[in-house]
């Protein structure tokens, strides 16, 4: 049962092979038994899940079931969930139960999904390893000494460990795609504005985008059908029709034009990863695609640009965590300033504080032009590079990450080397483009991801391409040893 995809589980529910309560109970039991090794959940919502499952079974019996009714999922712990702790992986919000549901959460509820719980993550989504979580690092099911990636590391690990068939994630600089790659699962970051950010605790507002993480492209398509669409509560969410992402999965790929950026295959890339990605591209050629080399010359600049813009926005977004209205407040504050300083000093972890300081500095009156404005200029150039290339090819392919999963603690004292792990993913967020990561093999027993980048609102195309790839390969079906 735990090897079934969402699509297969939906079929089973429809046929009456099992009930949603049975399915949900089985997953809850599995989480209880197994998650000690992976630490992928921060909160398991057993009672609520069973109540939702019961309601789903009733809907199925009454013939009112939709495509998602009764299917269990987990939410990254930055999506606000009513009356359930929404910690964002931080001590700051350890005591915070949201009084409202994020739009994404509400849509899954509406669709009849069952929430198993909330998944672990880097604190405030700041990290590429899940090590900055207040609740301790989530572990990679392929090797529990390794990181699952981040910041949606809990979602990646939970899906890979078959503790949930699917989970939501969010991606500010690669936080869906990188853990998907490192955990051997499939994830898609939609176009900026495709999925509502309302109720998704902000890290960097102009870059954050929620998206699905599952084992197959088909499951991602099912999830995106629920998640995508206009939300009047989010001014940056686009009022644009949402196609049925499952309807075009089987379109043939003959004539597909693939671009491979020279800059993505430099010496810095693990040659074994390069080889897996080339092999994947060869599969597409067999399916009728043509391949050409393209250039994204500002790829390297995406790291400095991102590490100005994201911390700048974060420094302001995180100001609301001041100990006044909710969240952590220090003991016995002497006065207001003491309360601010100690609440924030004690409530935030090191990486969050580092980024708040970097961002604050970048926005200071004397440095604004040299840093923030310059970074925004670079951002526009990076976007222009993509637009130019995508006039020529349908999609861009390359590796999702330069290396497979690294060991927990390995990069703790070297934030810059940690930041370098996001070299291939960051630029899409800067450009607002959609991208996905699809398993394309292993290196030394650890999964490797193929990144597929498309034009704005080309999610259906990306899912179609990934699905066709998964029809002719079995990388996505591999499970970690002992799972």
């Amino acid at each position, binding site marked *: 049962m735990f090897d079934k995809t969402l699509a297969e589980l939906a079929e089973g529910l429809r046929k009456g092979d099992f009930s949603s309560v049975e399915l949900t109970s089985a997953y809850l039991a599995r989480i209880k038994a197994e998650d000690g090794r992976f630490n992928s959940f921060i909160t398991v919502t057993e009672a609520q899940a069973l109540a939702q499952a019961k309601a789903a079974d009733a809907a199925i019996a009454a013939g009112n079931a939709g495509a998602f009714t009764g299917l269990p999922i987990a939410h990254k712990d930055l999506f606000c969930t009513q009356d359930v702790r929404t910690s964002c992986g931080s001590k700051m919000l350890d005591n915070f139960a949201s009084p409202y549901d994020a739009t994404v959460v509400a849509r899954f509820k509406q669709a009849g999904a069952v929430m198993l719980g909330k998944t672990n993550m880097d604190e405030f989504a700041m990290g590429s390893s899940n090590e900055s979580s207040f609740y301790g690092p989530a572990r990679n099911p392929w090797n529990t000494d390794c990181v699952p990636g981040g910041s949606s590391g809990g979602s990646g690990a939970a899906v890979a460990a078959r503790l949930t068939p699917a989970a939501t994630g969010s991606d500010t600089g690669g936080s869906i795609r990188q853990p998907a790659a490192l955990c051997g699962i499939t994830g898609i970051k939609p176009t900026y504005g495709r999925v509502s950010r309302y109720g998704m605790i902000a890290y960097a507002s102009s870059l954050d985008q929620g998206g699905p993480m599952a084992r197959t492209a088909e499951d991602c398509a099912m999830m995106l059908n629920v998640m995508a669409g206009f939300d009047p509560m989010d001014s940056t969410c686009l009022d644009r029709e949402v196609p049925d992402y499952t309807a075009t999965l089987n379109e043939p790929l003959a004539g597909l034009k693939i671009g491979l950026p020279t800059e993505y295959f430099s010496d810095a890339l693990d040659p074994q990863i390069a080889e897996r990605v080339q092999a994947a591209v060869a599969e597409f050629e067999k399916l009728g695609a043509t391949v050409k080399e393209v250039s994204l010359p500002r790829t390297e600049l995406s790291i400095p640009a991102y590490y100005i813009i994201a911390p700048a*926005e974060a420094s*302001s977004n995180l100001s609301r965590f001041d100990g006044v209205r909710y969240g952590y407040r220090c003991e016995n504050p002497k006065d207001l300033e003491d309360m601010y300083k100690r609440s924030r000093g004690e409530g935030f972890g090191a990486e969050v504080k580092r980024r708040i300081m970097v961002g604050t500095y970048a926005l200071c009156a004397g440095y604004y032009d040299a840093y923030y404005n310059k970074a925004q200029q670079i951002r526009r150039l990076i976007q222009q590079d993509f637009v130019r290339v995508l006039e020529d090819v349908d999609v861009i392919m390359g590796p999702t990450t330069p290396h497979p999963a690294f060991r927990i603690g390995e990069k703790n004292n070297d934030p810059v080397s940690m930041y370098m792990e996001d070299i291939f993913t960051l630029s899409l967020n800067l450009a607002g483009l959609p991208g996905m990561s699809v398993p394309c093999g292993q290196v030394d027993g650890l999964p490797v991801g193929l990144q597929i980048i498309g034009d704005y609102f080309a999610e259906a195309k990306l899912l179609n391409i990934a699905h066709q790839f998964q029809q002719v390969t079995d990388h996505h079906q591999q499970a970690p040893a002992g799972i």
Partner: protein
Amino acid sequence: MEWEVVIGLEIHVQLSTTTKIFSGASTAFGAEPNTQACAVDLALPGTLPVFNENALRMAVMFGLAVDAEIGKRSVFERKNYFYPDLPKGYQTTQLAEPIVGPGHVDIETDEGVKRRVRIHHAHLEEDAGKSLHEDFHGMSGIDLNRAGTPLVEIVSEPDMRSSKEAAAYARKIHAIVTTLGICDGNMAEGSMRCDCNVSVRPKGQEAFGTRTELKNINSFRFIERAIDTEVARQIDLIEDGGKVVQETRLYDPDRNETRSMRSKEDANDYRYFPCPDLLPVVIDDSYIEAIRATLPELPDARRARFIDEYGLSEYDAGVLSAYRAQADYYEQVVNACGDAKLAANWVMGELAKFLNQSDTDIKDSPVSAEQLGGLLVRIKDNTISGNIAKKVFELMWSRGGSADEIIEAEGLKQVTDTGAIEQIVDEVIANADKQVEQYKAAEPEKRGKMLGFFMGQVMKATGGKANPGAVTGILKQKLDALCD
């Protein structure tokens, strides 16, 4: 040394939208603390702002009213600082690209000084909540009802040269925003708040002196007094060899003094940057023109029309057009009585006196415009004299009812029957030998002034009801007859 005062004003105007600038919560004043603050106003994690188009429309109306350039692209920015009544830790405001660009208003002081005051720009922003320092046993309470109320901040150039000009400018802005109906104008409730930037320089010097900023002044009278107090302080300081320090000061109306709040050194670096949660606001000419078409007659135009159409003095026209409700009331009185000057005298005189004494807005006047017009009709048709009319007005104010009802009930109808008046005049003359002799002895051209005594006696005898015009005529005729 002779000093010149330089003043620039920043006026915060609360827009009278029904909901907040970035959320759907109500903006009504006076609710229980924190009952009009939704998840967005509380800055709960994950919440996002959505811009209220009504606030945009009102800001554009203001811009058009002050002949300003309208920003076809305006951008909200975040002004970052920590304060307990600022829930997000930043205020969403506009800086580099405001909705209203350079404009101007023309002002005139009571003394007839006229000046054009340039407006540097006006921008949209959200109000903060309120910190309550009483009743919490050494702690502070936070009320976020006001958080997110839309404001337009109107920033003038340093164009004013006296406290009276500053007050006149503030009154003009008040007149404009109330006429436009974009602000209720209630200064006591904080609907319009004023920061005054004040400096002095030796007369003739071009460079500005160091300025101080007087924060949050909420009445026209206090604007004048606060500036006068601050100007005196600055001049004393400089003449004693001291230097003005650039700082923010608070005006204490009870002590009539300004006190230092914080100096420039304590100023925050607000780290402004464009708010990534809100898109730039882009509008086109047709949007602007559609709003222009809805603009009501503005105070300056109305004032000109009052002079033109009603023959009012510049001063009277200025006073009557300054506040839309008052101007509307005045015009209704004119319509009801057909006499623009009489109506002006009564609205600015008797009515204004009663409104002031009872601290009543003209919109809530117990005597309606139609009723006042009805009273004035009775003066014009000689049913009552002006003096009796004041008595009638007082009763209309206190008891209610129309002028006719009160005149009837109180028997205040004027005596216009010349026979009856002649009889009384005869009696008065017969009982005033001494005054009659003086009248006869006086030069003929001085006799007019001496009628007053006889007039008073006639009025006394008739209880003020004799028609003063008729009495004058008859008195003159009878006394002059004695002189021949």
